[in-house]
């Protein structure tokens, strides 16, 4: 008898890419669901190709399944074509492994990687036939648990989740699972489990807190309504990154997915302290993995997957101290076997140019710089420690080495930005071109230099020094974009420069959701009910429906973006202790105003507060007396 699928042949043959829904990938874990105590379904609320590329889920999948009493399975968002059919036929959403309905599981864990996935969270719940609001779920329904970077401000989606896991998944999940087994054994009420969970460090149960607002709309109080809930939720940190779970047998999809390669996470955290960057603050302390262990992982994972490519992952790979050793090891060991080493973006210097020339076809590859801002003044404001000299010298070396394509990444709408700073973007792009034409003799040139400058719209995020900042409206952003377009055209080498800009509508909504409060739950629900899903996909994003949702909920959209917040305003996410103190963030905001650069964690400790975690191999160690 062939494996039974949840969807019929008719359905699978009528949708695009049926391979998204059948499971049975290489290294998929098979267990008898009857023989486990807990069934956990892990979800990435976007299409399969995106979700399968996410390392975090692979780590947790491996970790959960290492326990015999738990069966962890997966689900991703059905693409709109299947979504439509499932609604018409009332087919319940299912997990890929067993093909069983998710509503029969004990837990549904949803990773929240970007704000624009919120309506997809509702789609998952809805198709699973689980009530959208946690308050409407009865005893049999799975507990819905959120995690990932967006759970650092879980308030806009608080109504939809029974609980949130704040921080890195490697620490207290098993404690939570054991509490669940205990609860089940005792035959208690749903609320009793939530109370048990609330006692575990890092677990936030939104329904156990009451929220009040001031007349101006800002948050007044945020307090637990039961003794089990703590006033502060402490972020979870894996303190020994070398000796923890790592998926040495990751799943190998049939379809080509976004990240179709072995991913080695070499380091967690970042020493740089760029003031716009949420990940740089959230993933502190910076913890490198042992290079020998990584070499071993690389070998094991290439053998267990058969992938033809391996890549490194971290927030700033150039800051990994054993990078040279690791990269040369990978190239020397695996290149001759036809395995490609895909490099992450690296600081351009002799080392990176050397490795790039070994693993890439120079004629086809391009160099990437992320100056983020056009002027030195602005780069000081955002604490991006990359100077014009660094860029031009790096580019010169690369041009001499045979490259002639450069990508430059910038942001528009940064706090304290002036039009001179924006013009700086055009000027910098031009300077890169000048460097090429002045230094590479005509006979050695392979055509024109190609410079692609891209800009995205800055979105202020919680737990960053810019969490107080006002965000540019889409009108301002468009004005700036048009101004920059004009300035690019004024440059001497404008024919060598191509300029791209990110969509302004999406950024604005992302800004609202990122720093929103609980009142947004109704808006998201309304937008979803009016048909919004896959908001992260431009072809599906419908701005008007969102605006309509705000209007019907009588909520002011601009309240969340169009104002500079007071120093002592109580933020919806302030109940989370991310380890980095609010005082430090404010200090950094002040330094930004003063255009003062803060040194990175290797050069000097700036006292962000994260040192209280006793993480092994952390960069903080150096500064503990």
């Amino acid at each position, binding site marked *: 008898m062939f494996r039974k699928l949840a969807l019929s042949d008719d359905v699978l043959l009528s949708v695009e890419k049926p391979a998204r829904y*059948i499971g049975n990938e290489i290294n998929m874990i098979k267990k008898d669901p009857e023989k486990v105590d807990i069934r956990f379904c892990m979800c990435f609320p976007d299409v399969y190709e995106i979700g399968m590329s996410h390392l975090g889920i692979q780590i947790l999948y491996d970790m959960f399944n290492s326990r015999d009493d738990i069966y962890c399975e997966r689900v991703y968002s059905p693409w709109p074509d299947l979504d439509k059919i499932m609604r018409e036929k009332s087919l319940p959403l299912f997990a890929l492994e067993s093909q069983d309905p998710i509503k029969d599981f004990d837990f549904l864990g949803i990773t929240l990687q970007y704000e624009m996935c919120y309506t997809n969270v509702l789609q998952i719940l809805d198709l699973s036939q689980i009530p959208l609001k946690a308050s409407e779920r009865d005893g049999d329904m799975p507990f819905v648990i959120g995690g990932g970077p967006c759970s650092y401000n879980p308030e806009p989606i608080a109504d939809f989740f029974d609980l949130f896991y704040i921080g890195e998944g490697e620490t207290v999940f098993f404690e939570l699972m054991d509490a669940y087994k205990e609860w089940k054994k005792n035959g208690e009420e749903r609320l009793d489990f939530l109370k048990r969970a609330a006692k575990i460090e890092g677990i936030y149960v939104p329904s156990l807190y009451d929220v009040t607002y001031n007349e101006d709309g800002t948050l007044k109080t945020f307090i637990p309504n039961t003794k089990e809930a703590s006033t502060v939720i402490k972020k979870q940190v894996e303190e020994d990154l070398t000796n923890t779970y790592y998926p040495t047998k990751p799943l190998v999809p049939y379809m080509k997915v976004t990240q179709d390669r072995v991913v080695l996470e070499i380091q967690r955290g970042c020493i740089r302290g760029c003031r716009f960057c949420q990940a740089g603050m959230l993933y502190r302390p910076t913890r490198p993995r042992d290079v020998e262990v990584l070499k071993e992982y690389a070998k094991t994972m290439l053998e267990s997957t058969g992938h033809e490519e391996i890549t490194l992952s971290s927030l700033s790979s150039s800051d990994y101290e054993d990078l040279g050793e690791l990269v040369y090891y990978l190239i020397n060991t695996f290149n001759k076997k036809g395995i490609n080493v895909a490099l992450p973006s690296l600081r351009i210097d002799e080392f990176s140019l050397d490795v790039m020339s070994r693993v890439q076809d120079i004629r086809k590859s391009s160099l990437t710089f992320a100056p983020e801002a056009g002027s030195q003044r602005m780069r000081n404001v955002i604490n991006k420690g990359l100077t014009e000299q660094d860029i031009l010298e790096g580019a010169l070396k690369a041009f001499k080495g045979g490259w002639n394509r450069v990508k430059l990444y910038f942001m528009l709408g940064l706090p304290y930005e002036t039009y001179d700073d924006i013009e700086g973007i055009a000027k910098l792009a031009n300077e890169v071109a000048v460097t090429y034409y002045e230094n590479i003799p005509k006979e050695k040139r392979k055509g024109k230099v190609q410079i692609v400058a891209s800009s995205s719209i800055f979105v202020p995020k919680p737990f960053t020094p810019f969490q107080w900042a006002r965000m540019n409206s889409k009108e301002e952003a468009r004005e700036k974009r048009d101004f920059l377009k004009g300035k690019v055209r004024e440059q001497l080498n404008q024919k060598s420069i191509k300029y791209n800009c990110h969509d302004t509508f999406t950024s604005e909504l992302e800004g609202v959701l990122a720093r929103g409060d609980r009142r947004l739950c109704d808006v998201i629900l309304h937008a979803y009910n009016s048909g919004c899903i896959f908001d992260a996909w431009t072809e599906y994003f419908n701005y008007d429906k969102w605006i309509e949702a705000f209007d019907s909920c009588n909520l002011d959209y601009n309240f969340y973006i169009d104002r500079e917040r007071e120093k002592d305003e109580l933020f919806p996410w302030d109940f989370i202790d991310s380890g980095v103190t609010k005082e430090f963030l404010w200090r950094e905001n002040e330094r930004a105003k003063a255009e003062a650069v803060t040194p990175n964690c290797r050069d000097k400790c700036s006292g962000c507060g994260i040192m209280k975690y006793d993480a092994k191999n952390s960069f903080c160690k150096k500064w503990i007396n």
Partner: protein
Amino acid sequence: MKYRIKFFKIGSMKFIGHLDVMRYFQKAFRRTDIEVRLSEGFSPHQIISFASPLGIGLMTTGDYLDVELTGDLETDYIREELNAVMNDEIGVIRVSKLEDFAKTSMAVLAAADYTVCIKPEKSEHFGNDFFEKLQDNIKGYLAQEEILVTKKTKKSERVMDIKDNIYYMESNKKSFEEKTGLTYTDESFDYDYYKPIFFIRLTHGSVLNIKPETVIESFCTYAGVKFDSLFFQLNRLEMFADKNGEKGKVNTMNSEVKCELVSLDRWQAI
């Protein structure tokens, strides 16, 4: 050394497209210690080629791929190593070693055998006597003067007679095996669930390709029953080279030069 691998792809794997099957085998080889020869150039790739892509929805218990290995390995060893790293729905049936001069499966492919079954879960749509009606009409269908079908290509549509391109069509496996003189390696196909209406051999290759779906549709029309491709489950049983084959020509059992078909794993094999 050149090798030819006969494989099956059944069950839920029928939803995996051809490009993904290629990627699947490439990765499977890299999970073993069998070394596939790489092409020259800046981004070398494994030298693997497939006899013919299989459409989404079809199963196979007799498809082929050719591969060049750097070493000279035992064929059983290759099969066992690969099956150890593959799933239970795509696997290797047999490996044969080829002569150095052997042409690729794709180049020599001349015909293919299929099982055409009905899907029991669709029975309420196609009705009670559907199966019998079809089986009873096989003889009459084949006895026609000509069997006309409309062949659609990207550019045009043309009507052609495919009577000579249907080599055999039998209502049960036993008589099909008697006619073809073969024993099929289709143990993994679920005959308990899918009920075979007929077994068929058709011209299949780069010059002329008769899709089983085309024949089913024309057959249904002849038998006077409703055709819906979702009623049927197809399984490819075997693929053949023509001993008398010439480039650019199709031989049939009635042509001037008659075809002499031999299954791909016995063609130019050592």
